[in-house]
């Protein structure tokens, strides 16, 4: 269990100030307001794209700041990319069937 020689002592984790958190939270609320107000406008096929882009930006804020992803070792970010990439590939390949019917 205990031979983690590459991290010989419990590392001092990154500490984030309350102010930063509140700022991020405020940013998330602004983005929510934006996406809700955009929903009222007729954007045609851009509706789904703008909604998904805004949702992705919000998720990135939560992932990087609330979940400390940007302060973790690089492995964590590689893992996250692998997981996300896998899901995107699953969706894309499924549409190789449905989009060409």
């Amino acid at each position, binding site marked *: 269990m205990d031979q983690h020689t590459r991290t010989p002592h419990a*590392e001092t984790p990154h500490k*984030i100030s309350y102010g930063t958190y509140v700022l991020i939270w405020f940013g998330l609320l602004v983005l*929510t307001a934006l996406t809700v107000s*955009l*929903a009222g406008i007729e954007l045609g096929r851009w509706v789904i794209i703008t909604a998904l882009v805004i949702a992705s930006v919000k998720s990135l804020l939560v992932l990087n700041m609330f*979940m400390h992803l940007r302060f973790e070792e690089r492995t964590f970010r590689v893992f996250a990319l692998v997981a996300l990439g*896998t*899901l995107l590939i699953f969706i894309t390949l499924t*549409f190789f069937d449905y989009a060409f019917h």
Partner: protein
Amino acid sequence: MSSTSPGVAAGPHAHRDDVGSRLGMWLFLFTELILFGGMFIVYAVYRFTHPEAFHLAAAELDTFVGTVNTIILLTSSLTVAMSITAIQEGRKTFALTLVGMTILLALAFLVNKYFEWGHKFDVGIYPGAPELLAQPQGVILYFGLYFVMTGLHALHVIIGMGVLIYDFEAIRRGTINATSFVRLESGALYWHLVDIIWIFLFPLFYLLH
């Protein structure tokens, strides 16, 4: 090297590896992401094959209730994130307050959800309802996905609440403290994932009409 740890590996760790624990937690979160991802695939396909019906059905949902629930979850993410800073600074009471607030916000989300679902049931929108079955097939699929996806999300909210209550107790007893708080970090990570899922569910169901 550590020959101190006793008997079978269940004993206390002579050396902690918080990074490893968090790595494991993240891997678990990815499985949750892909679990929901499977439903997003179903959603994407049916939205693609029934665009008009999805448009129509989305108008049935109450954007206001959805927005309120979004704000509730985002705020709960804030409080649980702040609780980690609080515990790092050794401010136990403040940490307890923040985790407690998170749990209450989760409860508020569920109450909201309960009334939202209740209203749908009242107007005859529930799986197998004759009114719903009379609708075009795309609408049946939309509401099928709506109930399953928000339902499974709500189940995750409940599980997350359980985890946070457990962490609350651990902070109170002092097993989560300024030098050992990876359990709170894991609980918070799980909670943020619940938030992220909702960040996508919200526009896909409530805003695309």
